[in-house]
């Protein structure tokens, strides 16, 4: 099915199941510990061995030699496979650094061997016995600030240029020129990367935790030079991803290499202390924001110049992304400078580009509003745009950003905010209020599904779509239930199996809108099949209460296909009108109250409010969970999360969950989420968009602005920890 024009009213609009607050259908499996996560799938293959990774002790150079004799002789060891045993495995385009093979070391904790043994403890003990000699390459670059100084004046082709930024900025009566930095961040997802691999009759099967089954199937086929049909991936349950599991990672290739070498199934998980440096992270950024405005507050010039780290060949964190479309302004200049460095691989993490970009942009907007003596809400309202500022022909399909701002201000009690930075006390706490806007594009990807009607009127949906804790199982079941007029409990959903139709996967917040559209298409195909059976036109059928109504007759779904299954498969493909004629995006406003201890500078978030504009909300419970999760992650990014770079050794020193701090329960006070009513017919047949990434955008800036409001001290270097402002924090009288 093609989606080539805005959706008309259709069968998914009835709101019987879709749009209703249903608890997750996979919830009981998760809360009882019975959902089969990759590492615990003991039943899928007999005789599983355990592989433990050996990782590089240096960040850049070559391996001179490896001595595996002691490891091989250790108890229980079946095989030791080193990176020297083979050429680099061919890598997919999505991966920047090599995952395994060859002598070259591209980053700290790169996988250089896997020790395979009968038990985990044996493999781990033996892995520590592998001795490696390195030749360190002294020509390595680990310090983003130093690299930026060296490359500040490099001529680069702007990522986007509209009008004449330089002249307009020069001429602007009110100007801001400020530089912000964001650190590397770790996905810190609860479930580590993990895979079990088995080779059987020339087919490689991988039970794994992966957000994008089809991409990674392809990547695996490429790595091992196999035809696609000889590779199967199964990833039904994923304990968090946030982008960490978009691509093939070392767990998968080590398991596959080891399973081939030993002739037995092998499982490999990345131990927590290896994840930060072995896998990917959100890249570091240093961002210069320049905004020029007229006295009345209208933006005339906006410039965003972003510097970020990447291994050779990558793109880094593209923090200029939000600035392209978010606010009005005739003169615009976006510059993106990914500098090639030798830290681990920077790559996608929840709302890549937008998260880091809005951490800077939305603070700059706050600073600008202050310079203009304007309410930051009013400043944003004034600079709203309903068209692409670089191409006014393209309208936003829907943009209710102003409603987000105004509704948020009302619900939060913005008019009662502290208006004098540093001016409000509650006991020893300085109280501050801050807000920010949020923006995230809403792309869609082709997505397929197969729907089966069983003789007993149960429905089975199969797609390789994944649920990374987001609620995909539930909204997919809701879609099928809505389309076929059956209760939610009658729908069984199978996800993450590469034998199923290829879906959009979980990434770029396109999953919910795209995958449900694919299921919608497959359900329409099934309705046609049913119409054929009844000798009716599909359009004349109504599906309700497990029955089909046509003309004056009612036929139960049960038995409509006789004793057999009725099966239909289809795929939604999105036409380019979405991007050519429109800009599709999601919006939010965030309002935050913080307390800052007047003596010690400890920061506590007291309450948070988000108002979101994200098309039709398919399930308010799972959508809310996405947004409060994003808000929590935004608090982490604002106040504590940092992959601390050791610029001498070239690694992230905070590489475990004790030192890479993410928020705990006690850090999160009241969280309120409001979804504006909205249906975006340009987005999908279900008129839905994504919320998972929108939830984190803008949050950190709202926290940062609240901290400024509480203290009167502006910190432009994330995370905002007390050491960065304590010496400027006025002493309590």
């Amino acid at each position, binding site marked *: 099915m093609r989606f080539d024009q805005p959706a008309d009213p259709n069968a998914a609009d009835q709101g019987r199941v879709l749009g209703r607050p249903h608890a997750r259908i996979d919830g009981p499996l998760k809360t009882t510990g019975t959902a089969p996560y990759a590492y615990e799938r003991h039943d899928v293959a007999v005789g599983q061995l355990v592989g433990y990774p050996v990782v590089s002790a*240096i960040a850049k150079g070559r391996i001179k030699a490896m001595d595996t004799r002691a490891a091989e002789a250790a108890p229980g060891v079946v095989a030791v496979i080193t990176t020297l045993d083979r050429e680099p495995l061919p890598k997919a385009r999505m991966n920047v650094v090599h995952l395994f093979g060859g002598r070259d070391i591209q980053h700290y904790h790169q996988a250089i061997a896997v020790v395979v043994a009968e038990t985990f*403890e044996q493999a781990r003990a033996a892995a520590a016995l592998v001795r490696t000699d390195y030749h360190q390459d002294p020509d390595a670059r680990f310090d983003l600030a130093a690299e930026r100084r060296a490359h500040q004046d490099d001529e680069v082709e702007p990522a986007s240029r509209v009008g004449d930024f330089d002249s307009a900025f020069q001429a602007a009566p009110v100007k801001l020129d400020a530089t912000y930095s964001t650190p590397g961040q770790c996905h810190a997802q609860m479930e580590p990367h993990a895979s079990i691999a088995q080779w059987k009759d020339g087919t490689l099967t991988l039970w794994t935790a992966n957000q994008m089954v089809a991409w990674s199937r392809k990547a695996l086929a490429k790595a091992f030079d196999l035809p696609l049909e000889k590779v199967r991936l199964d990833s039904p349950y994923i304990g968090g991803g946030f982008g960490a599991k978009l691509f093939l990672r070392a767990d998968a290739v080590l398991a596959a290499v080891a399973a081939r070498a030993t002739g037995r199934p092998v499982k490999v998980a990345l131990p927590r*202390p290896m994840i930060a440096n072995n896998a990917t992270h959100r890249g570091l950024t240093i961002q210069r924001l320049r905004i020029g405005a007229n006295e009345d507050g209208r933006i005339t010039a906006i410039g965003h110049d972003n510097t970020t780290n990447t291994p050779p060949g990558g793109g880094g964190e593209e923090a200029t992304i939000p600035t392209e479309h978010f606010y009005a302004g005739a003169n615009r200049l976006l510059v993106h400078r990914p500098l090639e460095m030798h830290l681990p691989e920077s790559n996608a993490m929840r709302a890549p580009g937008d998260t880091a970009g809005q951490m800077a942009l939305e603070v700059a907007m706050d600073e600008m509003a202050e310079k203009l003596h304007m309410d930051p809400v009013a400043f944003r309202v004034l600079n709203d745009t309903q068209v692409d500022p670089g191409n006014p022909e393209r309208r936003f399909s829907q943009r209710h950003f102003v409603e987000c701002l105004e509704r948020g201000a009302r619900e939060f009690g913005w008019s009662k905010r502290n208006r004098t930075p540093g001016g409000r006390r509650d006991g020893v706490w300085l109280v501050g209020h801050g807000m920010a806007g949020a923006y995230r594009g809403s792309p869609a990807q082709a997505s397929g599904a197969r729907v089966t009607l069983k003789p007993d009127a149960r429905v089975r949906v199969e797609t390789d779509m994944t649920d990374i804790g987001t609620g995909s199982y539930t909204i997919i079941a809701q879609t099928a239930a809505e389309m076929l007029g059956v209760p939610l409990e009658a729908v069984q959903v199978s996800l993450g199996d590469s034998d199923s139709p290829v879906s959009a996967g979980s990434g770029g917040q396109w999953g919910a809108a795209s995958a449900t559209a694919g299921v919608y298409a497959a359900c329409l195909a099934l309705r046609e099949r049913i119409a054929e059976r009844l000798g009716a036109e599909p359009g004349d059928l109504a599906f309700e209460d497990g029955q089909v109504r046509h003309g004056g007759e009612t036929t139960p779904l049960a038995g409509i296909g006789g004793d057999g299954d009725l099966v239909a498969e289809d795929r939604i493909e999105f036409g380019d009108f979405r991007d050519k004629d429109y800009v599709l995006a999601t919006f939010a406003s965030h309002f935050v109250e913080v307390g800052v201890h007047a003596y010690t500078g400890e920061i506590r978030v007291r309450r948070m409010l988000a108002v979101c504009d994200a098309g039709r909300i398919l399930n308010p419970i799972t959508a809310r969970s996405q947004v409060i999760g994003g808000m929590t992650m935004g608090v982490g990014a604002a106040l504590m999360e940092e992959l601390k770079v050791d610029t*001498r050794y070239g690694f992230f020193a905070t590489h475990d969950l004790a030192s890479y*701090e993410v928020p*705990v*329960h*006690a*850090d999160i006070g009241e969280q309120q989420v409001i979804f504006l009513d909205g249906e975006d017919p340009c987005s999908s047949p279900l008129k839905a968009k994504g919320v998972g990434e929108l939830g984190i955008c803008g949050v950190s800036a709202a926290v940062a602005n609240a901290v400024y409001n509480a203290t009167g001290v502006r910190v432009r270097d994330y995370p905002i920890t007390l050491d960065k402002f304590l010496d400027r924090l006025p002493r309590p009288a």
Partner: protein
Amino acid sequence: MRAFTYQRAASPQEAALAAAGTDHARFIAGGTNLLDLMKIEVETPTHLIDVNGLGLDTIEATDDGGLRIGALVRNTDLAADHRVRRDYGVLTRALVAGASGQLRNKATTGGNLLQRTRCPYFQDTNMPCNKRQPGAGCAAREGASRQLAIIGASEHCIATHPSDMAVALRVLDARVETIDGQGRTRHISLADFHVLPGETPHIESVLEKGELITAVTLPAPPGGRHFYHKVRDRSSYAFALVSVALVLRADGSGRVALGGVAPKPWRDERAEAALPRGAGAVIERLLDGARPTQENRFKVTLAERTLAAVLAEAKE
């Protein structure tokens, strides 16, 4: 983790004897620190002597009006003991400010005192660390040192002792009771128990090889009001940037110790004399000679402001 042999001792003395006579032996109590470090091969004992089940898990009143806390008393139980809550509030407050509920259920009094530093380079065996490998150098001094010591350290090691409990015990004038393989016991003042790194950062306490902690004793209650303020980057489940333990008497005199700033709980009885003059005067004396790094210079200010916060709270 290396393979190890495991022994369940029948008595404290037998445990001490076994540890003294075996190379690379370690006692295991709650295991919350030791096992983590064994998994990453920072600790590589080849023999573990389990000291659970030796009857060292009770809290008893002493003849001089104090308490004797068995070395195996769990942090949770110690914090909840009604006598501790009533008479040694600073200890309860420090304990519950540490780690998490699950960890405190396992963590023991003895193990807490002997927990190792959280220096990131100590925990990464690829990095030079004098504490792990004497003579290797110290990667932290010019590296990620934000969490580390500003005083009492040396050019060989700037690690902090991360315990909260120990800071409270220090203001309470606790003593550590030990036994050796010959059955000899010692009472060591907590002030003398941890040693500064100097040129030998791998030596962290005055315990002899095989010497087992059997108890921690508290003298009669000090009276006064008890405070423990721990400053960290998140609200819970994080180690202190700086912590202040304070026992303040009605006349304005009192006792202060700092955590998070030194290789041991940091207290100087002479500095306490300045308490009536306020936080600035106390900290000036207490942190006299501090040698912070660029990254942890803020701890000097933070210590002073945290003590000021506690003193202000005390006035309310």
